[in-house]
């Protein structure tokens, strides 16, 4: 009976036009970038802030390298990291100071989306969770909050409760179990955590043969972007459909 109901739906799906091209977002990372060559439909996510936590203090600075673009970025990215040379003392006072700094860099450009890029060890997850809660509380509701994620996090069950609108699993530098996860994704599988199914990130130097279609795609390159690098990554991404 259930199969019978499904058949008309499948037929309807077959009649639909081809899926639209995926939304693509180019990351303007910590290097000079000239993205004026981008096609009109490509968005820009610019790293506006860099925060390095160490001990009971931190370093916070804005972008040091110019981004040349013919359109405003749609995403402000704040990168946070923990310096392992000095054990972090995550106190309420430090949390308040760091969160205030993150919010400053998140609002430094008037983008409709803010992204937190903060990769942590298992023992440091609470720091990430705290920051996300503070940033969500400090941003206007109209601003979307995005976070990057080590892909293997999306096979665990702690991301779903985070106060974010988008989780971007990175299909490069995937973390422990990366090979198995890569095989799963390339084999047509998906991330176990449903919150990880809206967007994903790829790198120009770590091509992946296939990933679930219909996602917002963030593109990373280890060097400054060039038109040919962009075209190559985009072409690959469009082949996933």
């Amino acid at each position: 009976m259930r199969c019978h109901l499904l058949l008309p739906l499948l037929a309807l799906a077959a009649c639909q036009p081809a899926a639209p091209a995926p939304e693509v977002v180019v990351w303007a990372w910590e290097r000079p970038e000239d993205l004026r060559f981008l096609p009109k439909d490509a968005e820009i996510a610019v790293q506006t802030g860099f925060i390095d936590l160490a001990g009971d203090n931190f370093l916070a600075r804005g972008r040091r390298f110019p981004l040349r673009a013919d359109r405003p970025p749609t995403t402000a990215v704040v990168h946070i990291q923990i310096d392992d040379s000095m054990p972090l003392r995550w106190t309420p006072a430090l949390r308040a100071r760091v969160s205030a700094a993150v919010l400053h860099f998140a609002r430094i450009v008037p983008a409709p989306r803010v992204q937190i890029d903060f990769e942590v060890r298992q023992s440091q997850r609470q720091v990430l969770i705290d920051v996300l809660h503070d940033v969500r509380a400090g941003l206007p509701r109209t601003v979307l909050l995005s976070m990057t994620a080590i892909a293997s996090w999306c096979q665990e069950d702690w991301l779903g409760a985070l106060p974010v609108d988008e989780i971007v699993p990175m299909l490069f530098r995937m973390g422990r179990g990366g090979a198995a996860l890569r095989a799963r994704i390339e084999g047509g599988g998906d991330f176990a955590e449903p919150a990880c199914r809206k967007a994903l990130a790829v790198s120009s130097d770590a091509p992946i043969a296939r990933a679930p279609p219909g996602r917002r795609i963030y593109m990373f390159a280890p060097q400054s972007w060039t038109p040919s690098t962009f075209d190559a990554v985009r072409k690959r991404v469009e082949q996933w459909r």
Partner: protein
Amino acid sequence: MAMKRGWWFAAAACVAALAGTRASGSGDPGPILDYVTSHALHPIDRAAFAAGNVGIVKPSAPAAVRYLDWRLLTGLETGTDAARALTTPCCGDWQDLTGVWLEARRQVPGLEADYYWVSTERQGPDYTSIPTCFGDAFTTAAATLKARIAAHGATSLWVRAWVDAQDRVFEACSKDGITLPPLDPGAPAWLRADRAYQQAALALYDGRLADAEAAFAAIGRDPTSPWHKLALYLQARTIQRAALTTRESAAFARAHAAIATLAAAPDGTYGRGEVVRMQQVLDYHEHPAALRDRLDRVLNAKTPTPDIAVQFKDYWSLSANQPDKPEAADWIATLGARNREEGLAHATGRWQATHRTAWLVAALGLARPDDAGALPLLRAADRVAADDPAWLTARYHLLRLRIGRVPDATLRPEVDALLARRDLTPSDRNIFLSIRAQLATSLADFTGYALRQPYCKAGAGDCAAVAAEAQLGQRGQDWLGLGDDARMTIDRLPLAERLALGRSARLPTALRLDLTLTNYVRAVLLRRDAAVNETARMLVTLLPQVKADWQRILRTPPGPAKRFAEIFVMTKIPSLRTDLADYARPHGDEASFGGYWDDWFVQLPRGMAPAAFPAAKDYYECRWWDGGAQDDAVDLTCNGRCGEAFPARPASFARPMQAAARSERSAFRRAADLDRGKTGGTTLWEEALAYVTAHPRDPRAGEALYRLNRVGRWGNNHNQLSKRAFRLLHARYPGTVWAQRSPYYYN
């Protein structure tokens, strides 16, 4: 309060340093506590440099550390201060100090309390940020406020007026158009003097440099101002900043004159000690080539200068990308040459021309055994005298270039002699331990060299924080881990040898847990009841969180029920693996065990490719960004920090066992190993599902279905395991707690 330091100088240095670092992608969790470091952040490594011990030269080290190597290799002195200055990362003192100020102002009642951070940068063009205010401005403000509170009281309206103005000054760090509140005509003299200083600082931050200069000059003319003594210095800095902003020759001339005036001031004048640095900042922009040549002479002088780190930063930034580098900069650049062949040819040529062992070291670092010029380099390395600072590096590369090409027995005594030395840094000891483990003659011999001491600060708890992730174990006060090469060897051993190693009391308990858990999985997959029992017996104490499950396995006789008990406990431990390569230690209680389940076949799909060992690169501890490396370029000995890769290979004694170990691996196949598009086969979890289906009255059935639902959900869900477990659970045990805990099916 006005800054005291050359921000432009530090900013330029930091930008240069950032540009030279490895692209960090979208970031990573930072370096894990490592067995080999090239950064010399640990006091032991710094002390070695200070004592003149170069150790194994690591071409991946920051440029300033490579310059320290250069000094030692060319017979120049180092000393404690120079070693500390050169090994301190750029901008490490750029910690946020706004908190010091914000904490101080909380002493004044009635101020906004929900104020935690001050932006110290202004927006520049093209989304850049330009540093405006620096840490000492905030510490000076905090100290001043403390003094004013001590003198006039925290509730004084004048103190409150001072803080209000200071808040506005700091607001100008990031905003244009800031003005100070009007000063009450009845304000006391001290507040008037402070206000004049605040106005000058505001003008400086606002880029109104002529106003700032005039204001500091006026303060200098007022002997009653508490800021009087700082005025000459701050005036000179303001004029210097104007020169660097306009880049006009007249402005540079004014700056030189102002610095000369400061230099001619009486002893004890504030800021006079900054004169040399201030002059260097001007030279950097006005006469870069001359400055570089002067710094080259200074930096190659026998005795290090107090400003050696600052001088090196300028020297390196003026040399690094120039084709005609001075020799020291050339050597530093050649160590990290991007084009190996060109770098090797250049280093070899320089060595032949200069006969400096520094150049021999550079060439050795870039050489591969098959290079045409490797033999002369090897011979030269063998002739390096034992008292030469290059000796240890030469011995390392001799071992690297000869291992596997000469009998192990030839190399073994040499490594033993190296390990007997007392002057090895932890990094270098770990490197030679790795080499010695690869030359091991037996499992017992191997065990003695497999353990390595990571870089952890005793008592700081940083090892403990990552112990599970890094697979570390504690023995007394020491944290120990298995070297990357050792874990690769262990994973390539047959189960019998792995079991023997798991019994070794020489391993810390936590490492025995790692080994025994992976052995347990292997034993289950190989269906070896004796091995299952042995490991389960050990796990009763090693992993007591699921003690009852281990005990049930031990008391259940061989057969389907025992098999089910074996798999049942595996549904509780999601990070179980057959190999240390991708295993993660369970920690906390059973509910908090992390990871996701692997799915092993008990019946293989047709046409599955033959079993293989994990790739060598899988043993890089948390270095995901090297995932694309080919196996022949994987360096599990020096982690790629000593130049060309030390070949990754299993220990000698293990090599005859490889065929047996590979044969066992045919039982360790996983759904993730399947080629795309292939299906079929039966997994371990399906075996458990079949047992539950056939044994509806088993008291564990409901829980097993709940767990199998989770295994499928978070694992690979082969053949829709999750769905099948969910349906059976809700059809057969609908009212149980296990059904309530899994209210929906998830694919």
